[in-house]
């Protein structure tokens, strides 16, 4: 997902975290799981930790938790501000907060960086206790179900008895669906947006180009590099390319068109930045390498590619058979990475399996990242889905 779908807040920088409807200053915490954790592939880690944030309070019945699942390049910081001088709030700040669609006055919101991630949770950049060096390519192949099982342990640690809803877009939507399949008694509602039950060849192809950019960078060194080093060029190129797949022709045209940088800013070579869109992508690539680990990029894109609900169960209906949650799938017309068709297929399979499921489609031109959209229509849909008291399955 991109970093900049949200419009810049208009309040003065120093006071933005105090805005009404904002969760304000937040701090991440770490959950350490000290027991061995076995991955789907059979490999075992002696333990792991997840970095997470929570907003709102867990109620006495311990049934008001909402789990937010982030996308490939996202993290646990989905709302509020880490410091008053932050340039931007958490990535879903427009959706989450007191009085917002995900109302933190009512719900206890939990968001964790996924297992295999690089924003504080255990992943390939974490030190391997056996060697003292980062795991690198020795990290166990991580899957979406592994990420979900790790987050379940966090929820147990937090004392959550019932999850009111799991919400996610893109990869987060995969996690949300997996939550409902894996833990049917735990999860009351699933809201999955701009997602898929399995990636198309095109989506796998884009991930593969990203991986090749990383692995062909000599600094990748088969995954063996020191913290803060590694295939920075390859990772930046992977990000630039992936970033295009999160947008749309129309939204890029509106944002950049063919606008050019002023001559004074362009340099001598014919291949320096000339168009605004080039400068934008280079900036995206550069800022990404300062916050993201290349090995995590390889591991998580692989987890995305391998996620296949249909293959795992024989059919989508069989995959969804255990689900007890009410499900809402939301597709976006301009999303060409996980297009409406793939989102519809999820809702139809849930309905065929006799589940309570709805499908809504928003007409937007922002591409895959539309799920981060500031849209009153989307907020009203989400609010309506979350507000009603849970009804038992018929």
């Amino acid at each position, binding site marked *: 997902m991109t970093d900049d779908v949200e419009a810049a807040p208009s309040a003065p920088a120093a006071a933005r975290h105090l805005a009404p409807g904002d969760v304000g200053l937040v701090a991440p915490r770490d959950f350490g799981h000290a027991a061995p954790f076995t991955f789907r592939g059979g490999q075992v880690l002696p333990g792991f930790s997840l970095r997470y944030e929570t907003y709102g309070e867990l109620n006495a019945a311990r049934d008001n938790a909402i789990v937010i699942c982030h996308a490939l390049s996202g993290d646990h910081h989905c709302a509020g501000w880490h410091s008053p001088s932050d340039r931007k709030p958490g990535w879903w700040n427009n959706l989450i907060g007191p009085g917002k669609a995900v109302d933190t006055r009512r719900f206890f919101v939990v968001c964790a960086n996924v297992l295999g991630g690089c924003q504080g949770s255990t992943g390939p950049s974490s030190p391997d206790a056996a060697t003292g060096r980062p795991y690198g390519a020795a990290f166990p192949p991580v899957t979406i179900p592994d990420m979900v099982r790790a987050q379940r342990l966090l929820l147990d640690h937090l004392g959550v008895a019932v999850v009111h809803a799991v919400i996610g877009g893109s990869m987060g939507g995969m996690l949300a669906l997996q939550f409902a399949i894996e833990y049917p008694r735990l999860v009351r509602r699933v809201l999955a947006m701009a997602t898929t039950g399995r990636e198309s060849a095109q989506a796998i192809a884009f991930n593969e180009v990203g991986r090749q950019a990383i692995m062909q960078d000599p600094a990748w060194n088969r995954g063996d590099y020191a913290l803060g080093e590694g295939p920075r060029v390859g990772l930046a190129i992977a990000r630039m390319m992936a970033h295009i797949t999160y947008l749309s022709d129309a939204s890029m045209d509106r944002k950049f068109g063919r606008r050019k940088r002023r001559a004074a800013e362009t340099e001598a070579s014919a291949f320096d930045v000339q168009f605004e869109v080039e400068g934008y992508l280079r900036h995206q690539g550069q800022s990404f390498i300062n916050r993201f680990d290349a090995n995590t990029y390889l591991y998580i894109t692989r987890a995305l590619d391998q996620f296949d609900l249909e293959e795992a169960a024989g059919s989508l209906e069989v995959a969804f058979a255990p689900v007890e949650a*009410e499900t*809402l799938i939301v597709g976006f017309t301009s999303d060409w990475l996980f297009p409406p068709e793939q989102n*519809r297929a999820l*809702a*139809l399979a849930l*309905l*065929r399996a*006799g589940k*309570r*499921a*709805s*499908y*809504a*489609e*928003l*007409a937007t031109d922002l591409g895959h990242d539309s799920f981060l959209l500031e849209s009153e*229509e989307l907020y*009203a*849909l989400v609010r*309506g*889905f979350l*507000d*009603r008291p849970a*009804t038992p399955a*018929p």
Partner: protein
Amino acid sequence: MEKRTVDMQIIGDWVEPGTRVLDLGCGPGDLLAYLMQTKGVAAVGVDLEFSRIAACVRRGVSAYQGDMTTLMRAFPERHFDRVICSRTVQELAEPKAVILEALRVGRALTVGFVNHGFWKNRVAMLLGGRKVRNEVYTTAWFESRPANPVTIADFEDFCAAHGIRVAHRVHLAGNWRDPCTLLPNLLAGYALYDLTRA
């Protein structure tokens, strides 16, 4: 509103408790919410508009935004105990395809429609020479969706020609409340059919 209530009751009478019901053109989910409440059905609606799906979601009615025929094609035969097509049939692009598909995915099909053959419509057309406008036909020709006004006689012919069995039929007078048994194509304002495959 009152007219709506009467046909909801009749439609409800034909629904077995606890069954699976699909509503084609479900709108904000009024009928399905009513059937969930009174009959405990497992309800699914389909509609084209985002705002109507959002209204369904808000009241706990499962709803799918999209084309009804595409939706039905995604289901196996007889997946639903009953499909309902209430006041939608005259606005469909391909009514025949929808009705036959509904009889494939549903064990039974309820169709409810305004009888265009009702005498007031005939008189209005004959004397006025214009598109009928009244409390049922509220829009001018240029502001309404394409419509195939259908009469009871047309519909009966259609069922006979396509081997569709009429299990029940209810014709309501112009007030949409009292039963109409005499010359329904002329005197009935509203018609409800309970159909199955022959």
